[in-house]
């Protein structure tokens, strides 16, 4: 059901944990939906120097958190903001359609952590792009809770 890449990141998740005194934190998901992601970012000079996560969820949710935190590390905030759920899923060698929402959650977690940082810095919050941008994942489902 899962690609080798997903299983690799599930078995050996990178960046598990919390960052003490994180500069930005994103908490997304909902226990009723079966997945929650907490993303922690360390940011210096507009660059993400460290990223960690804690996730309650299925194999795809854990692998997406692991991959997304890998992908934003050493990126500028602008680059990290542009990381799409699709890119995360592709880097994992694809996700089953029913699991695409896990990659969406990872993107949202990164966005929330970046905006948390911007809020703390007194900067204006960046706006989510067209919320329908995930719609191309036709079969993907979003939790209604």
């Amino acid at each position, binding site marked *: 059901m*899962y690609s080798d890449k997903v*299983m690799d990141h*599930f*078995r050996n*998740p990178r960046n*598990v*944990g919390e960052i003490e005194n994180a500069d930005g934190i994103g*908490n997304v998901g909902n*226990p*009723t*939906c*079966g*997945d*929650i*992601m*907490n993303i922690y970012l360390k940011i210096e000079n507009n660059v993400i120097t460290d990223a960690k*996560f*804690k*996730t*309650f*969820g*299925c*194999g*795809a*949710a*854990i692998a997406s958190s692991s991959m997304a935190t890998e992908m934003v590390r050493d990126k500028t905030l602008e680059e990290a903001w542009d990381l799409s759920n699709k890119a995360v899923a592709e880097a994992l060698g694809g996700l089953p359609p*029913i*699991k695409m*929402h896990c990659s969406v959650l990872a993107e949202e977690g990164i966005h929330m952590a970046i905006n948390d940082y911007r809020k703390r810095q007194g900067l204006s919050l960046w706006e989510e792009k067209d919320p329908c941008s995930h719609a191309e994942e036709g079969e993907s*489902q979003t*939790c209604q809770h």
Partner: protein
Amino acid sequence: MGEKRTVYMDHSATTYVRKDVLDAMIPYFAERFGNPSSIYHIARDSKQAIDTAREQVAAALGAESDEIYFTSGGSESDNWAIKGIAYANRKTGNHIITTKIEHHAVLRTCECLEKEGFAVTYLPVDNYGFVNPADLENAITERTILISIMYANNEVGTIEPVAVLGAIARKHEIPFHTDAVQAIGNIKIDVNAQNIDLLSLSAHKFYGPKGIGALYIRKGTKIENLIHGGGQERRRRAGTENIAGIVGLGKAIEIATGDIEGHNNRIGALRDRLLTGILETIPNVHLNGHPENRLPGNINISFEFIEGESMLLWLDEEGICASTGSACTSGSLEPSHVLMATGLPVEMSHGSLRLTLGDANTDADVDFVLSVLPKVVSRLREMSPLYNGGKKGGYNVQ
């Protein structure tokens, strides 16, 4: 490096075929392959084999052999019983009573009938998964034409008070169907003593082959056919007989019901040791279903702070086969309808694990699961944002 161990604890999903059942089936593929409807001698062998199997099934249920009809399995039997009774009795009424915890073969069939104008009452269950007989009594109307309540639940293992529910149906002269797919071999069934009018069963749940099952239909029950065509099964169910499957079903049910008490004592002892071990070594867990009144091989337990699919993946890495009521393995985003019906909080349903033991499980299997499971749970809890290190203040469970 030793060979990777496989511990199969998903017997409620399906069982392997017993060696003696397989041996009984083999001649009916290539040697005694005749179509029982034909008149030459090799066809007579097939006919004889089917008659014997029908008697074996009837004996296991306390029924007459001409009340047994072979089908392709549990889903067909459920579909036939429900649609067949509904269509045959639509002039009398349009109301069907079932429960919220039925197998999807029953629930989806009822939903299908709702679209055709039938009205369905889905009885609630208590925290253990029991149907309250008073709820059934209260749900019956003059328009009720069928009551369908499962014998034992496939997820939480709860055994329903079928004889009592059947007696209520009998008192009101309403046909009573029970999906006994999980019950065969675990509970002594007597269709007369337990007031059962229709009963579904499937061979692959008790060490027989897949693709074969049966529907018991009490003599005199008004029911329409589901599968139309040739005149097989006394003109009730068309299709050339699956002879090898039927032979396998007959042999399997004879063995499975030969010593139910001995089987239950053995499986129950293994299950109890596994369950006790889990409860003693892993904190923040909740047993789903009833502590005693459950199928002998069934454990269904929720682990707080973690999700079921990730548990299954890790157990599979270690060679352990199990299942979960989490949404993440169901192909939808909704967790188990059974766990939700018992009032379990949704996050606890996502964290459920079902282990169902069977005849091939050993003490060594139990030891192995007990050596692996605590590690898997703590590993996932370590990365869960819901986990607070095991301090008090987990979920609220009734």
